[in-house]
C-alpha cells in the first residue's frame, strides 16, 4: 500500500513486517525515530518482540549476538559513534556467523562532533565481515530490509547485514513508500531457521578461541560466505522483483549507461542528485551515466566491470575518506577496473552533512573531463 512516511518510520514498519523476535537498541541521532517507532509498536502489541532497552550500543549488539545465538531473529539500528562503540562486537557477530540485521542511519564520525550525514561510519566497518547494502531512497531502504534478512539468514551465507541509508537526508524525509502487506512478506521471508544454536538439549560451544593452526581458516570461510552472498543477493533480489515489482537483483544499478563515455559511481542518496544532474547534462549533449553501487560488501567488482563497456572516465563520489589515502569507494572501484584502461578519479564530498547540488555534480564532471580528481570537492577556500 502506498503511504507517505518519514524514512525512519518506513524502515521501522519494514522491520516490523520482518517479525524480529528480539530488538535491542540505544537511541542516537539520526537513528532515534526508528527505535522509538519500534518501541511504540511493541508497546501497542503491533510487534510481538522482546525489546531490550540497553545502556549502550555496545550492549545493543552484544544482546543481539546472544539472542541470535539462542535462535531468534534479531534487529538493531545505530549510526556514527554508536556504530564505533559496536566495533569490537561487529567483528564478533560476523566471525560467529550470526545473521543479525542492523540499520545504519549514516552519519559522520567525530571529532569534531557532527550529527549530519556522511558514510564514514559504515564504511569504517567494511572489513568486519558484515554485508553492507546502501539505499538511494526510502523505498529502497524499506525493501532492502526484507532482502537483507533473507540473504543474511540463507544457509549459504549466515552473515550479519547492515542496511545503510543516509541520516536526515532519508531518515527524516517524508516520501511515498509502497509498503508490502504482512502476508506478502510472510510468504517472501520465512521464519528464521538457524543452523547451530545454544540449546541445553544439544550442547555445543560457540566463540571458542582458535590458535594459529585454525584461525586463518575461519577468516577464509567468512570470506567465502561473503562471496557466496553475491549470488544469493541476486537470487533474492530477483525473487523480490517477481513478487513486488521492484528490481533489486543487481548489486549495482546503471542509469543511462548504454552509450555513456563518462560515468559517476556512488553509494546511497546522492545517486538521486546525480540522476537529475545527468538528465541535465544529457540535455546539453554530454554522454554521462550513473552506476549506483547497492552492495558495498560483498563488493561487486565483476558487475562494475561489466556495467561500463563504453566508458573511458569514471568519477567516484565518496562521502568518506580513508585519511592519508582516498575515498574507500574510489579505491575499490579502481581495483575493480584495474587493467581496463578506464581513468578513475575520486572526489571526497558532503562530509559532515555539507550539501551537494546538481551544479556540484556538473562541476565534478568538468573536473573529470580535465583529468582533475582525487581531491576534496567543495572545500572552504581559507584552508587551501
Amino acid at each position, binding site marked *: 500500500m502506498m503511504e507517505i512516511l518519514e524514512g525512519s518510520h518506513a524502515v521501522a514498519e519494514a522491520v516490523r513486517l520482518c517479525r524480529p*523476535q528480539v530488538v535491542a537498541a540505544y537511541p542516537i541521532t539520526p537513528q532515534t525515530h526508528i527505535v522509538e517507532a519500534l518501541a511504540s509498536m511493541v508497546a501497542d502489541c503491533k510487534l510481538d518482540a522482546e525489546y531490550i532497552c540497553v545502556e549502550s550500543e555496545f550492549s545493543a549488539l552484544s544482546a*543481539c549476538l546472544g539472542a541470535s545465538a539462542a535462535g531468534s531473529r534479531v534487529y538493531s539500528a545505530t549510526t556514527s559513534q554508536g556504530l564505533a562503540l559496536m566495533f569490537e562486537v561487529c567483528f564478533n557477530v560476523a566471525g560467529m556467523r550470526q545473521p543479525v540485521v542492523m540499520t545504519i542511519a549514516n552519519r559522520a564520525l567525530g571529532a569534531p562532533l557532527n550529527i549530519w550525514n556522511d558514510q564514514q561510519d559504515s564504511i569504517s566497518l567494511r572489513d568486519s565481515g558484515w554485508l553492507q547494502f546502501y539505499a538511494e531512497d526510502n523505498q529502497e531502504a524499506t525493501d532492502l530490509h526484507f532482502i537483507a534478512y533473507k540473504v543474511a539468514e540463507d544457509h549459504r551465507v549466515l552473515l550479519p547485514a547492515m542496511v545503510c541509508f543516509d541520516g536526515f537526508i532519508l531518515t527524516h524525509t517524508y516520501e511515498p513508500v509502497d509498503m508490502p502487506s504482512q502476508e506478502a512478506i510472510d510468504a517472501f521471508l520465512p521464519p528464521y531457521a538457524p543452523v547451530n544454536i545454544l540449546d541445553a538439549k544439544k550442547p555445543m560451544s560457540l566463540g571458542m*578461541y582458535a590458535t594459529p593452526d585454525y584461525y586463518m581458516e575461519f577468516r577464509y570461510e567468512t570470506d567465502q560466505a561473503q562471496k557466496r552472498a553475491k549470488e544469493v543477493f541476486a537470487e533474492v533480489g530477483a525473487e523480490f522483483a517477481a513478487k513486488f515489482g521492484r528490481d533489486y537483483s543487481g548489486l549495482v544499478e546503471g542509469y543511462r549507461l548504454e552509450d555513456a563515455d563518462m560515468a559517476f559511481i556512488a553509494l546511497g542518496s546522492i545517486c538521486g542528485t546525480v540522476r537529475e544532474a545527468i538528465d541535465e547534462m544529457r540535455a546539453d549533449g554530454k554522454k554521462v551515466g550513473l552506476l549506483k553501487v547497492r552492495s558495498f560488501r560483498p563488493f561487486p567488482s565483476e558487475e562494475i566491470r561489466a556495467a561500463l563497456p563504453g566508458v573511458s572516465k569514471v568519477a567516484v563520489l565518496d562521502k568518506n575518506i580513508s585519511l592519508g589515502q582516498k575515498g574507500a569507494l574510489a579505491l575499490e572501484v579502481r581495483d575493480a577496473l584495474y587493467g581496463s584502461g578506464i581513468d578513475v578519479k575520486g572526489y571526497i564530498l558532503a562530509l559532515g552533512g555539507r550539501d551537494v547540488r546538481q551544479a556540484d555534480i556538473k562541476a565534478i564532471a568538468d573536473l573529470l573531463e580535465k583529468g582533475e580528481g582525487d581531491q576534496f570537492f567543495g572545500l572552504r577556500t581559507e584552508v587551501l
Partner: protein
Amino acid sequence: MTEECELFECGHRACGGCGPALAARLIMKATGENTIVVASTGCMEVFSTPYPETAWGVPWIHSLFENAAAVASGIEASLKKQGRDEHVVCICGDGATFDIGMLCISGAFERGHDITYICYDNEAYMNTGIQRSGATPYDADTTTSPAGKCSTGNPRPKKDLPAILAAHGAAYVATASIAYPNDLIKKVQRAVSTHGPNYIQVHAPCCTGWGFDGSQTMAVGRLAVETGLWVNYEMMNGEVERVRKVGHRKAVDDYLSVQKRFRHLYRPGRNEEEIAKIQAIADANAAKFGVDLNMKKEE
C-alpha cells in the same frame, strides 16, 4: 565427552590446582545440565575451549572480554520469547567483572534480566600474566602493581562489587569460596532458582598467579576465610542475611606468608606497618559482617 565427564571437567588445560577450574566444576554441579553458560575472555575461556576441543558439557558461548552480561541479556530475552527455560549463567573472571565488563553488568542488572552472574575471583588478570585488576587486594605484588623500592604493591583495596550489584536491586548476592564446596553449590542453586539478576563472587585462588603450590589451593582458600580477608556471606534484597562465622580468627600472616605475591612484606624484614594495615582490613571485614563467633565473649 566420555561418560565419566562432568558438565565441566574433561580435557581442560588449566594448571594443576587451578581454583577457577574447581569453581567451574562446582558451579556446573549446582546448575545442572539445563544451563547455558556465557563466558568472558579470560583464563577459563582459554583453558577450557581451545578449538576444536571443549570442556563444557552444556551450551557455552564466549563473545568478548567485556560483554558477557549483555550477551546473556540477549539470550535470556530470546529464550523468553521462545518459551524456553534454561538457566542463563555468566561465568567470568574478575577483570571481566570488576573492570572492563562493569557497564554491561550494570545495564543487565538494572534491566532485571533473569540471569545468574558468577565471578570467579582470582584477584588479578591471570590470562595475560599477573596484572592488577579492581579485585586485586591491597599490597599484592602484580606485574602492573609491582612491589619495589617506592611501592609495597597494589596501592588500593579491593572494589566492593557485591555491594555495588546489591545496590542495583539484585535479589540475591552472595560471596563464596572454592574452599567451601557445599556452601558454593548451595549458593549457586539458590541463585539460579531466584528470579532476576543475581550475583555470586567466588574466591578462587590462582596457584600460578599468587605463587603457591598447586596442592595448597584449598588450604589457601580456607586461610582467606579464617583470617577474615575473605568473608562468605549472602544478601537478600540488599540486606546481609547469612555470614560464615570464624571461631578463632587467624592472623593475616598465616595467609599472606604462604603466597609469593605478598613475599615483599616479609623480605628483607617483616614490614610491620603494611601487615598491620592488612590486619586492619581483616578486622574491619570481621566487624562489618560479624564474622567473629567469639567476639562477645572476648569483649
